């Protein structure tokens, strides 16, 4: 935030709050939140689901990808008020340290996560791809994940891990 920015923040205007009922990872949550809060903020700051990360909060990097009714969506661009009755899946709902999803297993085995910050978003985008196309080609994987940036891996091991998970089949 630079000084002299024309986009002044409005403090004196009353903030409209709403009770949201969100279904996340199969659990129902009731949240009282300002209507302008994004799904990303509600997941991280109100539901404690910090597995969902943020890289730009402008829909540019794919880091905050979650699944809404199985489709990959950028949680920084969604308002929870739009999501009544929809099923939201975050990385916490993909698998756990006790029971890794095959994608998580493959990412761990092949070193597809280095710093791990983009990993949750990429895992969910990959999950949506495999749900739709269980045996995607190399290029289909690259296309499906092209909205997710990663600075560590050079993407190589991520594509290999998705291929390995696909080869092993769905759980």
């Amino acid at each position, binding site marked *: 935030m630079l000084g002299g920015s024309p986009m002044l923040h409005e403090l004196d205007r009353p903030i409209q709050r709403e009770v949201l009922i969100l279904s996340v990872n199969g659990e129902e949550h009731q949240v009282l939140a300002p209507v302008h809060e994004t799904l990303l903020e509600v997941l991280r700051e109100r539901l404690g689901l*910090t*597995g969902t*990360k943020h890289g730009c909060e402008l829909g540019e990097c794919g880091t905050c990808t979650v699944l809404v009714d199985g489709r990959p969506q950028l949680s920084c661009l969604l308002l929870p008020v739009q999501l009544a009755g929809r099923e939201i899946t975050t990385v916490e709902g993909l698998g756990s340290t006790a029971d*890794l999803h095959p994608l998580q297993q493959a990412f761990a085995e092949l070193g597809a996560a280095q710093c791990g910050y*983009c990993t949750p978003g990429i895992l969910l985008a990959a999950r949506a791809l495999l749900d739709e196309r269980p045996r995607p080609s190399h290029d289909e994987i690259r296309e499906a994940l092209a909205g*997710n940036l990663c600075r560590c891996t*050079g993407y190589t091991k991520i594509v290999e891990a998705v291929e390995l998970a696909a080869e092993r089949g769905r759980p």
Partner: protein
Amino acid sequence: MSRLDVVGQPLPRVDAAAKVTGVAVYADDIVLPRMLHCRILRSPHPHARILSVDAGAARRVPGVRAVLTGQDVPIRYGIMPVAQDERALEFEKVRYVGDPVAAVAAVDEETAAAALDAIRVEYEVLDPVMSIEEALREPADEPIHERAYTRRAFNVHRQLAYDFGDLEAGFARADHVREDVFFYQGSTHLPMEQHSAVATYVDGRLTLWSSTQVVHYVHRALARVLELPMHRIRVIGAAHGGGFGGKTDPFAHEIVVSRLAMVTGRPVKCTLTREEVFYAHRGRHPVLMWIRTGVTRDGRITAVHYRSALDGGAYGSYGPASVFYTGTQQTTTYAIPAYRFESVRVFTNKAPCGPKRGHGTPQGRFGIELQLDKIAEDLGMDPAELKRRNFVQPFTRAVNWLRITSCGLEECTRKVLDASGYARRERRPGRGMGFAISSYMSGAGTAIYWNDMAHSEVQLKVDRTGVTAYCGAMEIGQGSDSVLAFVVAEELGLRPSDVRLVTADTDTTPVDLGSYSSRVTFMAGNAALQAARRMRDLLVEAVAERMGVHGDLSEIEVRDGRIGDFSFEEACVIGTTRFGALSTSGSYRPPRIGGPFKGSGVGPSPAYSYSACVVDVDADARTGLVDVRKVWIAHDVGRAINPLLVAGQVEGSVYMALGEALMEEQAYRKGRHKWPSMLEYKSPTFVDTPAIETFIVETVDPEGPYGAKEAGQGPLLPVPPALVSAVHDALGVWVDEVPVTPEKVLRALEARSRGEAPRHGPRAFPAFDFGERIRVEPPDPRDMRVGSELEEAFRGA
């Protein structure tokens, strides 16, 4: 060496499960009771005097708990002792768009942001300095920094000039001499995680969690600025979302949240916005280079005269080292008999530059590789062959005293040339291959601040519950924690998951200098090795006593979770019974390597990695578009402690290099960053990144742990010049600067069609007086002496 059970295996990293499940706690994931949120007001001007800061209205905003301005944190700091030129919040003048001026702590981020708008700052705007050329001229208004600090003309920050060997004699022997000018544009790290820090102040003790690469240096900076003794400050590295050099300085937000926690008595968090991350920067220096090289008829280098000018941005950061690195490392790949190196770093009103993956060396590498390609063309030689003729030999000493130990250049070269079919490549317009090599240091030979202490320290504890390793090394995604676990597991006959780790916590872990200069595997690895071998001896001694073995203890095997007749768990109980709780420590300090001259401390490393690469491109003469088809890269890592992690570092380096080579640019327009967003700052996506075929070459360095050298930075270096060389191979024109955008390719083609030199790039190097050169007598190339032996020789001389 006996059989290795862990080292060399492609095991998953020790933190893999935490990373793939989202359980790892990054700094911004930390939430503490009653935590306040901080936002920082930054300068909208590239260069201005601050006349007044009025924070009265901001303090009255409901929900605001504290406002800081420059007078609250007035002490200057900086990563290097000779460049203490930053303030956490500036109150005299601002030097780039994004320079911090004030900070607010409030009950939530939104309130803090709104309060920033209520702070009134009165500026007197000054003429900004936005290029190397401008910085070398008399400024319109005033220099960016006080003359008392720089002690140099205009906006010159540092300058240096060296003569290694007899340059004139070298050029006199040359059959062919060539001069070229190159430019390497700046780029930023763009870590996926924005910088974030959380501070608490309880019982007179400050604790800071941060996404830093260097907990120790942050610790020192906090002590300096906050005027607290170091034992009252604890810095903890949170799970880290990517650094690449961008989180290697102490940052304003780390100091600000600390002071705010002290003022409010509540936890305070600050997470930068993506836009702010572009201003925090410390990325690749834009570097202009002029190189003159002489060769014999058969392509052997007789002399190199290398000049570089670095655009440092607004502050010193690592600049005093960067200015050396652009030139010192040229001698570790090619045997250069005479070398003149002159370099200058200037201040400009841009976000400060610093160390990005390869720190100062990719620029010089770009210039030297491309000039050798051009010389090969002049001589009608194959560039790969010309380069090969000049390769340094293992176990030799370079003209500027850098000591080369293991060196896999020739093997790396063979691997990529064979695999790519370079010699038999298809020769048609629009298709081309380029070849380049590089080397990089496995940790700097000297610490950032002068001291004789170890660069890395590891402690091991064994009690009745098992083994724990403690080390200040910082896991930033490169596998620092994993290396520690692999080394300890190897020595104690365990699996890596059997080793508990406590890392990067200044209260509990001994000092490691941090994750920069590719030093962790080499230095923390060696420290862990020493600590683990000492622990192994103690456990074996206790077990031998219990088994009734005397004399030769080598029959007591330590392997597969057992020590002699006992399980490791039983051995821990036996050891603890015999000695009490056991602890051992290990440490590593590189030997003195540099020559007998001022400045010789920058550049030496206990070992250099080597890389070779071939880039294959399609280049379209109509559109100027360059499509990378494939990259083959071979990397001499000494020994791969974990080939999976090494390959990951190599692939990541190649990818980051392609970004710099083709699209990434920290560019400015009218004093402002041209595109401080991830959408407009273009970086390669999944679809832009080509197939990368990696070959790991092992030369088993005598000083590396198990022979290991670095892997995280060196493989970036050869890619940009190989790409430019491939474009030349495809289209017959040179683009002598990165990024190689379609526009530049077309300009080079247009120049050729106009009958001009078939190139696009800088035309001249600015006139600058580098001052008197330091003359250095070159060493005997076979002189391998280091440490006290070398120091004694210097004293005797």
